[in-house]
């Protein structure tokens, strides 16, 4: 399980016992995240995986301060703050200060439709950096070049393909030189070649900018390509966190040699059951039933 190994300084984010509930229509609540605990180390690429509906997107929304949590803490260790900042306790102004230090690539790119690519990338700089227009122009050129989109700088987002939108979204996310980059399903809806190109770009950025990357994804190929460490979620809990090679071992092992239900579950999932464990009405996943039936 996750433990706070090492000194606090090589941590980027520490997620502690996070609980998130949504109200249901009939006045009750469903608990989507149930005591999620793990650490994200500075400079690493951490991939968050899990089946459909296990709470990945919800967790990401909690991490970026879009949802407030119902319990637990999310501590950000930023470079020039001595104390970690707990976003569960922050007001909007504090949250905004933190938001300037991280970038997010949304699933669809989320470019502002009324602006050109260059204007999209320039907006965070204009609003938060207080530098000259000529310098902003240079930074924009640089950022667009980094994602190989310079040729399209004066196009509107509606004139771009899905992969191009994501690349441009990445340029905008990195405009303020963030310490942490969040990716929401970076390869969803892309063909394998484009998806591999995005992966390359992500690894490139993480090397060059030394950013911490947190990636939510479905795609196993992509996950194993980019991850330093991985977190497996299931029904709102952390099933396992570990280095990529541990997950590779579970994936490649003979099911008979795996010990415990959790490992067999993960084995199934990592072998490319792309939809993952789908929870039934009786609270059991298809895989659990299979495993129980097999025993």
């Amino acid at each position, binding site marked *: 399980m996750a433990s706070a190994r090492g000194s606090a300084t090589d941590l980027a984010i520490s997620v502690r016992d996070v609980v998130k509930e949504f109200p249901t229509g009939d006045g009750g609540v469903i608990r989507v995240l149930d005591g999620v605990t793990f650490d994200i180390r500075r400079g690493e690429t951490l991939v968050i995986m899990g089946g459909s509906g296990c709470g990945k997107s919800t967790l990401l929304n909690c991490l970026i301060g*879009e949802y407030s949590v119902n319990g637990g803490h999310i501590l950000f260790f930023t470079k020039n703050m001595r104390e970690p900042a707990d976003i569960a306790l922050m007001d909007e102004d504090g949250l905004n200060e933190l938001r300037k230090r991280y970038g997010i690539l*949304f699933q669809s790119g*989320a470019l*502002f*439709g009324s602006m050109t690519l260059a204007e999209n990338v320039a907006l*965070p700089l204009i*609003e938060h950096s207080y530098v000259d227009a000529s310098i902003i122009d240079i930074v924009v050129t640089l950022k667009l070049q980094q994602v190989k989109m310079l040729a399209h700088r004066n196009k509107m987002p509606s004139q771009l393909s899905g992969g191009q939108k994501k690349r441009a979204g990445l340029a905008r996310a990195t405009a303020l030189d963030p310490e942490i980059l969040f990716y929401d399903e970076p390869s969803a809806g892309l063909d394998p070649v484009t998806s591999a190109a995005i992966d390359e770009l992500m690894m490139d950025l993480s090397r060059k900018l030394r950013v911490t990357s947190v990636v939510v994804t479905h795609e196993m190929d992509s996950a194993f390509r980019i991850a330093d460490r991985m977190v497996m979620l299931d029904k709102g809990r952390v099933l396992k966190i570990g280095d990529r090679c541990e997950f590779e071992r579970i994936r490649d092992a003979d099911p008979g040699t795996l010990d415990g239900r959790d490992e067999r579950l993960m084995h199934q999932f990592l072998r490319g059951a792309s939809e993952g464990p789908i929870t039934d009405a009786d609270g059991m996943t298809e895989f659990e039933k299979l495993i129980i039936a097999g025993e």
Partner: protein
Amino acid sequence: MSDPSSESAAGRSHIAYRAISGVGSITRDQASRLVSILSFVGGVTYLFYDALVWAFRGVFQSRIRFGWPALVHQMVRVGVRSISIVFLVQIFIGMILALQMAPTLQSYGQLERVADVVGIAVVRELGPLLTGIVLSGFAGASIAAEIGAMVEAEEIKALRAHALNPVRFLVTPRVLATAGMIVVLTVMADYIGVFGGFLTSVFILDVPPSLYVNLTLDALKMTDFVTGLVKACVFGAVIALIACYEGLNVSGGAEGVGRATTATVVKSIVALIGIDAMFTAVFYALGI
């Protein structure tokens, strides 16, 4: 369930149960309707407060720039698109009013008084109200659809994630632009409506043109004009606020955007007429 008597007893109690639960669900429905109306009004009011705070911050805090380009862009969009429809509606309303009132006034032998009736009705009431209704179809619907589509494309989330406030960037310029442009449009509407009445009176009712103009000028006081414009300004702000509120609360894909657009038009028109009634009552009580 083979015993028929117990079955009919069960049937009776079933009917009684249905009747009671029916009454219960009606009151429950009413209560939840009331709650949703209150939360709508509360939400729109809070959005108004938020938009005003950002407008003031933009003007008075040097750290936060006021989005002049965005404001101008929105004004052009709101104004230009609806100008021709406002013209069309007003000129016909002026003409219709004059024709409708003519027989009654003629029976008093004061046909030329058509000028007073048209002038007061258009400037105090129909100019602002009909311009507002046209704008809720044009500006309101398009604002709701635009912001709703932005919600669906995660653009609003992206704004927040870049520490940019969506109210400041989207709501404030739209509210100020609509409130400003509707005043301009209403001034035009007033002239056009009166001109419509003039056309009918001169060419159909044979009122001398100079008499019509003089009677209109005598009948209208500055307060008539100003009260109409004050109302219009409030109408514009309300239309934009309702549209932004509906747009920001879109959920459920393209269908949700469609629902928000329809809801904006319907709620705006109801709100305009309600506010108009309140204004009229207040002006009447104050003798304005």
